[in-house]
């Protein structure tokens, strides 16, 4: 069987395994879930080693007829872009399982349901990135909402039901717009050489569209992705969802699911509608830049630590979007790498924040204080995660953020300049909570908080290690990403701007 | 006589019937108005049969009568039941189900 399909099936099998374990053997359930996710992670790493980075076409391809009446195939394959994102998903999942060992306990339903949902979600995450058939992508895109919806609404805290509904409605709305566009594509393809959903074949279809059609179809896709990624002003679901979800769910939500949005922009918006992408680039850049600054300001003003992290993500997604639409290799590679790095730094932030909250029973930043003395390991973990979030050089986010900025600057200097102001704001939105929560005198109620236990240390360790390692040595990922980015830029008919002074005065 | 005039009459009858359904409260009267509409249709059919010189219209009219008779059976059964329950044949009284 195809390696990629197998990878996607593994978590489902795990879910099946979990479902047959009796409800009262909670430990067994957790162990089974952890073992499955670890196995998936290892398999994905193995795939990464077998991936031929120099080859820009899809690899590990499998195509099987699914719904021949509509030309729909089960078609999967990965290029550098999707491989990186699949890696991100499957690496984060075991960490989430381990880090949120007790997350399932405050929920409406049993631990079993929780882990089944997580495992099903993992399958869908792999599927959504691996799909090379637009219809298949859409199916995963929509279907993955359901487990997340139940994870938020069933195991979250606070206004969890409302947040889950808001998340679902936003996403469904976007999804339906995309469905309209997909139908449009389908009809156009069936009128021009046979119905198909194959991404490669569909990317020829723009030749048969009027510019109005192309613009409309582009918007259908883009709005769906802009909701997912969240780009200002379609972001308001994210803080609510992130604040209500369990930390683990938030990690998957912000770390992986939202990446589907930015992934989709590259994979679908750009390649299917090159002309429309060009038309809308200025507007999108404006929105991206607004996201960067706006998200940062709202993060500065946030009182709740989870909302704060959510707003920082909005800012970061602004960077990613900007990098994508800058149409330079640096911007693209930076954006892709940013997706990966943001996954890890947000994961670290959310996990540590989750532990802080579960110990303190409050998510208000002001309730913390002086944690650096009480719980040094936890405080340090948060600090390093925060530093990564503000893109401190030497940590992974810096590389990607700088690539995005430099890549944008060569083509759209104004956008890059405004975005760069975001790095000052980033310093504020990280250091303010650091000061309030970690520094200062120990606030009453915090004196006896326990520091991270061994399990938590094991969970956060790899995340921080990845953050630091990729900061110094991003080559393993960049080597995979670069050919894919270059391919996208080239197929868009762009080439990187040459140094303006290179040829002499 | 111009057969089209029958069409006008039929149209008039249909309209009267339809308006009757809308304005009358008593279920029986409403039902009678519907019968009027059916008969307006019958008249139309017959007229067209005449105009077109084919028989189908008349055949249809016969079928309609049979069907209308069946409708009466069912309709009266329902109306009578509801009258027995409510002691009223006003269709406005039967408005529990709304919104």
């Amino acid at each position: 069987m195809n390696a990629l399909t197998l990878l996607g099936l593994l978590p489902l099998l795990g879910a099946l395994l979990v479902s047959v374990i009796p409800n009262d053997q909670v430990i067994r359930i957790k162990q089974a879930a952890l073992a499955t996710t670890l196995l998936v992670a290892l398999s994905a790493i193995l795939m990464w080693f077998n991936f031929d980075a120099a080859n820009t076409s899809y690899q590990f391809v499998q195509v099987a007829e699914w719904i021949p009446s509509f030309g729909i195939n089960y078609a999967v394959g990965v290029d550098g872009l999707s491989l990186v994102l699949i890696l991100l998903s499957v690496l984060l999942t075991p960490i989430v399982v381990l880090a949120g060992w007790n997350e399932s306990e405050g929920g409406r339903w049993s631990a079993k349901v929780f882990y089944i949902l997580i495992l099903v979600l993992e399958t869908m995450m792999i599927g959504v990135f691996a799909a090379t058939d637009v219809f298949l992508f859409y199916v995963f895109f929509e279907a993955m909402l359901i487990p997340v919806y139940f994870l938020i609404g069933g195991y979250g805290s606070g206004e969890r039901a409302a947040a889950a509904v808001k998340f679902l409605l936003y996403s469904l709305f976007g999804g339906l717009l995309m469905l309209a566009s997909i139908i449009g594509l389908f009809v156009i393809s069936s009128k021009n050489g046979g119905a198909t959903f194959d991404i490669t074949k569909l990317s020829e279809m723009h030749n048969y569209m009027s510019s109005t059609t192309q613009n409309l179809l582009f918007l259908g896709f883009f709005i769906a992705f802009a909701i997912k990624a969240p780009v200002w002003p379609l972001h308001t679901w994210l803080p609510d969802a992130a604040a209500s979800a369990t930390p683990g769910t938030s990690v998957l939500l912000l770390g992986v699911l939202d990446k589907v949005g930015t992934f989709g922009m590259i994979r679908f918006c750009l390649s299917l509608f090159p002309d429309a992408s060009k038309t809308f680039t200025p507007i999108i850049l404006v929105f991206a830049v607004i996201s960067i600054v706006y998200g940062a300001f709202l993060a500065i003003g946030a009182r709740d630590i989870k909302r704060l992290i959510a707003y920082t993500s909005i800012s970061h997604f602004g960077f990613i979007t900007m990098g994508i639409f800058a149409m330079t290799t640096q911007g693209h590679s930076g954006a892709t790498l940013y997706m990966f790095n943001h996954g890890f730094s947000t994961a670290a932030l959310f996990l540590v924040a989750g532990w802080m909250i579960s110990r303190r029973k409050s998510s208000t930043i002001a309730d913390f204080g002086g944690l650096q003395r009480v719980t040094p390991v936890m405080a340090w973990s948060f600090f390093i995660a925060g530093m990564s979030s503000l893109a401190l050089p030497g940590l992974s986010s810096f590389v990607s953020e700088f690539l995005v900025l430099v890549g944008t600057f060569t083509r759209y200097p104004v956008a890059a300049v405004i975005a760069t102001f975001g790095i000052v704001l980033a310093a504020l939105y990280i250091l303010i909570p650091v000061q309030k929560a970690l520094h200062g005198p120990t606030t009453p109620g915090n004196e006896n908080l326990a520091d991270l236990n061994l399990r938590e240390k094991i969970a956060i360790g790899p995340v921080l290690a990845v953050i630091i390692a990729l900061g110094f040595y991003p080559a393993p990922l960049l080597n995979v990403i670069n050919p894919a980015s270059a391919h996208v830029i080239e197929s868009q008919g762009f080439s990187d701007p040459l140094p303006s002074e290179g040829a002499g005065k | 006589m111009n057969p089209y005039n029958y069409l006008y009459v039929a149209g008039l009858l249909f309209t009267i019937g339809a308006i009757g359904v809308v304005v009358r409260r008593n279920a029986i009267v409403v039902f009678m108005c519907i019968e009027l509409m059916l008969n307006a249709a019958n008249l139309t059919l017959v007229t067209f049969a005449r105009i077109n010189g084919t028989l189908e219209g008349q055949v249809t009219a016969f079928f309609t009568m049979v069907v209308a008779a069946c409708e009466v059976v069912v309709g009266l059964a329902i109306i009578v039941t509801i009258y027995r329950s409510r002691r009223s044949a006003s269709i406005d009284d039967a408005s529990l189900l709304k919104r």
Partner: protein
Amino acid sequence: MVFTTPVLNYAQLSPILIVLAGAVIGVLIEAFAPRNARHNSQMFISLLSLVSAFAATVSIRKQAGVDAAMNSVAFDGAAFLIQATILIIAVLAVFLIADQENFTALAAAIPGSQEERESLQKDLRVTEVYPLTLFAVAGMLLFPIATDLITLFVALEVLSLPLYLMAGLSRRRRLMSQEAALKYFLLGAFSSAFFLFGIAYLYGYSGTITLSGIQQSIVGGSGNDVFLLLGIAFLSVGLLFKVGAVPFHAWSPDVYQGAPTAITGFMAAATKVAAFGAILRIFYVAFANAEWQWRPALVIVAIITMLFGSVVAITQRDVKRMLAYSSIAHAGFLLAGVIALNKSGLDASIFYLFAYGIATLGAFAIVTLIRDAAGEVTDLNRWSGLGKRSPLTASVFALFLLTFAGIPLTSGFIGKFSIFSAAYQSGSTAILITGVLSSAIAAFFYIRVIVLMFFKDPVEDGTSVVLPSALTAIAIAIAAVVTIVLGIFPAPLLSFIESTAFFIR
């Protein structure tokens, strides 16, 4: 004038004849069999006749022709598919009807009277519901295959009259049930008057009562266009009334709510299939060449129907009313298939009808299970926390809601996709956009119910989930399985429909 002896092709009529025979036997049983033997024998006869009718349809599926009854009916691929769908739904509906808890013991008894109490004590059964069902089914089988206007009208009445009665058979809230019967009857009769009036004008226009004759007249263009106009308009009123399209929808929420739930399910599913079967045949066969006349009007009706159904459903507090408005919205979606007026529109409509019919029946079957001491509980507020009390029931209901909402991996999604793409293929961008928009609105209330069931705490008011009877359980299980299987592997059915569905002229 020469009368020819009618030549009947009994094989092609056999499904209808079998069902009618079953109905007649049922009447005889009602008349002669002892009271305590009636129920089981009636049920047996009903199922037997329905199943054999189904077998008969299947056995003659390859036959096609208009000569079954002197050009009065046509048997073709589309007819087979629709009849088969109706029969499958009818079998499932009989499973539900068999759970006699829903029905009054003595329909003639005055609500609250001594007579009624006695009949309840004696545990009497309204076994006449079985022959009524069979008569209705016979009408439904005839309606979509009728090719002349008389047969159409007779079939319409044969399917409607039993339903009027069945709507009044509820055991609880009998006043409402009777009111539903009255409203359904009066408005139904009112609309059939329009229908008949339309028949008269079409006859006047073309001088013939066969659909193919009308089509030829339209092609010939010799008739008086005013008659055609009036004919199409009045006929449409009758048809649109049956499917519950706005503004001819007003009966359906009231009747759906008042009728016994099993009957509501049967009505919502089977009537819709039959009526759309007829609409498709009439519009595709008779009126196709006059599309420039009726299409704009129908587009507007479809748009209003989709939007109205979705918007009003949001505010409903009664589950049956909510499903009624949802079925109005779905009528709008189905009209999109009529408007498409192409082969894919026909295929899509048939698939949609099958998927939607089965799911609707399943959803109403679930409604019959939620009860308190006074019978079914349809107030949505009292459904809150259902997921906690009975996770399986709630999950299956959620599944049906998701398929109504058109979430991928359910049959509803495939249906929606195929029907909208057919509509867009024929150039109806407006339908596509409205469809997507109203799907988004519709998602709002489906999700609200899911939230209610899963994310709200149960109210302790004696509402409970009864164990479904074996037959109900089977019906629900079949519906759920069909919904999922058609969501994941729709290809066999789709290609079967694609290769089978056609209209003979």
